[in-house]
């Protein structure tokens, strides 16, 4: 079967200055809802009520999405650190016991 060509969109289609549509507006609001639950150090400094364009919305969307991932990744890192530390507490005890036997 012959390969069916798929036309490329016009280069003029790209417009980050386009007014934000109702879907992106809702997405920004959902992200703000999530952002409010993040610890302060992960929060964006962007004021969402001043967002007017797709490009501005895109910047906020990226910042908060990455912050959510980072907050979870950091929490996992902390959990692992605590687990390692807990294991570290067990080891010295075992060593003490072992050295005790030697005496």
């Amino acid at each position, binding site marked *: *079967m012959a*390969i*069916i*060509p*798929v*036309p*490329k*969109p*016009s280069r003029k*289609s*790209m*417009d*980050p200055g*386009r007014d934000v*549509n*109702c*879907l*992106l507006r*809702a*997405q920004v*609001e*959902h*992200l703000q*809802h*999530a952002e409010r*639950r993040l610890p302060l150090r992960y929060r964006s400094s962007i004021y969402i009520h001043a967002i007017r364009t*797709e*490009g501005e*919305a*895109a*910047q906020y*969307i*990226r910042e*908060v*999405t*990455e912050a*959510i*991932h980072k907050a*979870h990744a950091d929490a996992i890192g902390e959990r692992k650190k605590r687990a390692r530390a807990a294991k570290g507490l067990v080891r010295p005890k075992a060593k003490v016991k072992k050295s005790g036997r030697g005496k």
Partner: protein
Amino acid sequence: MSKGLEGLKHIVVLMMENRSFDHMLGSLKAVDGRIDGITDQMDNLDNTGASVKPQLLADFQGQLDPDPNHHFQAVDVQIFNGDTSASRQPNMKGFVKSYYNLRRDTAHSQKIMYCFKQKDLPVLTTLALEYAVFNRWFSSIPGPTICNRAFAHYGTSFGRVDMNPFDIIEPFKSIYSRLIEATPKRTAKVYYYDTTSSTMEVVNLLQNQPELFGTYKQFLQDCDKGSLPDYSFVEPNFNDHETDEGEELASDQHPDHDVQAGERLIAEVYMRIKRNPNLWPSTALLVLYDEHGGIFDHVPPPPCSPDHFTAPANATGTGMEFKFDRLGVRVPAVLVSPWIPKNTVVDRVFDHASIPATVTKFFQLGDLPRSPRELNADVFIEPNVTPLDPQRNLLSLDAMRSDCPEFGV
């Protein structure tokens, strides 16, 4: 038994944005009379009383600005033409009226009836003619995006008909949680385009289970490596943005984003699966749209069994409560697999609750609590169990097709 179902390992859903069946696929009626598209007998009246028929004049961008209203109240007008009486019947005569309300411009309001020519959408129309096209796939709610997408993820919108954040209400769970908590454990992923496009499922999935998410680039890599999860949900790019690699054009086809960018996305997803000879026979791809976006369609949404929830009158904006007992406007939906006979047309009724219903049944996730709407939703892939009803199985071929189309992307 069905060879297609026996070998099926992956279900991929690509959900686009805001286009109606007639707008995208209505032209195919002229190619195949079984496809329930547009005819000269259909019309809406404009504000002068003139008849406006669907016409093959849709353009890729620039016609549907402002964005047609598709909130619950406006869709109610589109379906019932403003009739709020107890005896009203859906007649699909209020699309021009609803669009006129936005700009008070008679000529502009008529564009809501425009449909694409077959040749303008080579990807979607080819897939529809080559595989299985659904004549009766409706959005789940006569309303906007977020609550309709919720039906694809949860089988319910938990009583919501709007765009606001919502909470999952126990005992219902997302299809992703059902899969990863199953015994034996299954795999699932939501692939958003990138972090700058992100997802429309922020408040529940991204916020609480970010590990469920991957990027579109990862989806492409997973296709190449043959490491797709059992179930993948792919989201398009929702906004125009710049990245280190250049410009990224919105590919969701939401008005007024370029429809051709979405065509390329659909072609790329299809070709990436097809190019992996191990993945192609073992994957079914469903391409569909979340809702009609306020754009004309001629098929009245049918009534359905009500959900567990009710939206109050102040939430619907119509002065009437909504028991989730009617489907939303019809959307394009195409199921792709090399085991589907060419030019299959499906007349059974589906909505987005059919997605979790199908995945739950196909992967045999057990007797889980599910919404009444999901329990009543039909499945588009039969469970691979005996006895199999051959009339319902779409992946019915004894041998895999070797004549499947390819796109140049």
